[in-house]
């Protein structure tokens, strides 16, 4: 079965990097054949909200954030890779690889 990733992206202004990071994570997760769901916490609020089932069923969590994750208690007990949004925008592949490294 394909590995499952859930991710949250959030930047300071919530205008651009939140959404670029989300797309880049999806792009490289798909390329590697992983399932991925990404919640964006931007200027429009929480979108594509991850359910507790999504989170519980995930192998690994990626926080691509420059600010605090809202409702982060949903992720208690999970393996979490925390990176900045710029890092993910620059190199989505590396973020996915690092996350998978955590749960090897």
């Amino acid at each position, binding site marked *: 079965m394909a590995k499952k990733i859930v991710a949250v992206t959030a930047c*300071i*202004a919530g*205008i*651009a*990097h*939140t*959404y*670029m990071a*989300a*797309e*880049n994570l999806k*792009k490289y997760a798909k390329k590697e054949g992983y399932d991925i769901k990404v919640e*964006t916490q*931007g*200027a*429009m*609020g929480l979108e594509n909200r991850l359910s507790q089932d999504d989170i519980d069923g995930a192998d690994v969590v990626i926080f691509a954030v*420059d600010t605090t994750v809202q409702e982060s208690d949903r992720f208690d007990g999970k393996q979490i890779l925390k990176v*900045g949004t*710029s890092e993910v*925008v*620059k190199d*989505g592949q590396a973020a996915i690889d690092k996350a998978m490294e955590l749960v090897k």
Partner: protein
Amino acid sequence: MSEKLSSFISEKNIVMDLDAHTQDEAIEQLSEILKKNGNISSTEGFYEDVLKRESMTTTGIGKNIAIPHGKSESVTDTTMMFAKNKTPLEWNSLDGSKVNIIFLMAVSPATQGNEHLKMLANLSGRLMDDDFVSAIKKAKTTEEILNLIKE
């Protein structure tokens, strides 16, 4: 949708031959156009807010593209400017590349959940798509850019 898009971006939001010599000059010139277009109330106020954001982390996202943006009280109507600069500009980019493609986003703090904000989010996401980026780079006319952004 197309009516909304037209109010969001039209010919007057696109500059194919910007002639700035520095990053600050590019932001300033584009701010002046936003003022002329009636999207911001103060060139100075908006410019300062964009530079403030710029000072936190670079908006040079790589591949010769920059997306300076400001959430600013000076913005009356959330919108964006697209520009191609005649020469590549130093922008402290993530990949070290110089910038000649600029998307300047102007966001009013009052636009939570606004359609224009969705379009900026959507456009930002598409900048991760290599095909979209290469089409933007190849485009030579205002019309081509408009069509790509509206796609």
